[in-house]
C-alpha cells in the first residue's frame, strides 16, 4: 500500500543519471519542468498535443541527474524520471517521448 519508491542508494551510484518520461497527452505546456530543471535537460516542443498544448521534449538526456525536480514540480504529473541503470523502457501506450514525434 505504500506508494513511495525505495530511496536511492546514493553511496553506490556516484553520479546518477536519469531517464525522463513525458506523458505527452497529459502535459499542459506550463514549462515548469523546462524552466526549473537545474541541468537544462528539457525544452518546449513546437508541436501541439491533442489538447493544444506544447509539451516539453528531452534535449540532452545525458545531463539529467535524476533530481526529480521536474517530476515534483509538474502540476500535471506528466513527467517523471527514473534511474537509467534501473529502467530503460517506457510504456509505449501511455508514456511517449516527444522527440520521437518531431
Amino acid at each position, binding site marked *: 500500500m505504500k506508494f513511495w519508491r525505495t530511496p536511492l542508494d546514493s553511496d553506490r551510484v556516484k553520479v546518477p543519471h536519469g531517464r525522463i518520461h513525458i506523458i505527452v497527452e497529459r502535459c499542459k505546456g506550463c514549462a515548469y519542468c523546462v524552466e526549473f530543471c537545474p541541468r537544462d535537460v528539457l525544452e518546449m516542443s513546437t508541436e501541439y498535443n491533442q489538447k493544444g498544448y506544447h509539451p516539453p521534449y528531452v534535449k540532452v538526456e545525458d545531463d539529467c541527474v535524476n533530481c526529480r525536480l521536474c517530476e515534483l514540480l509538474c502540476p*500535471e504529473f506528466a513527467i517523471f524520471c527514473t534511474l537509467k541503470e534501473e529502467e530503460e523502457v517506457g510504456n509505449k501506450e501511455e508514456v511517449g517521448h516527444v522527440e520521437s514525434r518531431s
Partner: protein
Amino acid sequence: MSNGKPSEEHHPMEALLRMDRIPHIWCSTCGLGTSVSAFALALEDLQYDLDKICIVSGIGCTGRVAGYVKLDSFHATHGRAIPFATGLKLANPQLKVVVFSGDGDLIAIGGNHFIHAARRNMDLTVICVNNFIYAMTGGQVAPTSPLGASCSTTPYGNYERPFNIPHLAESCGAVYVARWTALHLRRTAKSIAEAMRKPGFSVVEIICPCSTLYARRNRLGDGLELMKFYHENSIIKHGADPRDVDIDFQSPIVVGKFVDRDRPTFIDGYNRAMTAKLGEKFEPYGVAPAEVHDG
C-alpha cells in the same frame, strides 16, 4: 498494466493518485498539482500507513484535491471541511486527518470553523492553498486578496484589508504554522510532514499561482511567471512574528515556519479533565486502538 512491468514505468505519483481521474481539471500552469506533489513528498517522508490517513476538502479548485488523492478522501460542502474532519478524527482518533482546501473555503465561509478548531486544538493538519482569490467560481475577491487586487467582484481593485492567515491561525491557538510558496516544494513537504507529526491544530499555507484568473486579471503574467515571482519575492524568516507577515503587492512575502509550540489537543484535554473528575469510571478516549462503533 498489461505487460506486468515493474511500477517504475509509471509516474510514481500514480500510487497516491486516482489515475482514472487524471488529467485533473486544473488549468495549465496552475500551482495546485505542484502542491499535491508536495503533500505526496511529505507522506513519503512520514512513512505512515496510508490507509490511516484521511484527506478532506471543501469546495473550490483546491477543494478538488481530495478527489485526486488515493486516500480515504472526502469532498465536503463549501467551508465545512474542518467540521467534517473533526467528526472523522473524533470518531476514530487513530486516523490522521488532513484538510486540504482553499483560502476562500477555509478563511471566508469556513472562517468560524478554522478559528474554533484552532482554539480547541483539534488534531488536524490544515493545508491552505492561498491563491488570493476564489478561483473555482471565476475570480471573485477573497478575504486574502491583497489591497488593490483586481477581482471580478472588485473590478476597480480590492479595498478590504486581507487576513494574514498565519497570524489568524496563531492568535486562535494553532500549534504549528508555516507558509511557503508552491515552488518551495521540498520545504513545503517538510513543513507538512512536521505539521502532521505534531499533535494538534497545524496550518501550512501554500502561496500558489492561479494563472487563469488571478494572474491574468492582475497582469501578473502567466502561471510560470507568477510562480517564479512569488518565489523570488519571498524571504525565509523562520520564527517570524506572525503579526509581521502580512502580504501585499509591494513588499516581499515572508515565508518559513512561524509557530511550533505545544498545547494539549482537544482529546488530551478531554481525557485529562474526565480522568481527573471521574477517575476509574472513565476510560481515556482514543488511546486504545480505534474502537469500532458499529454496534
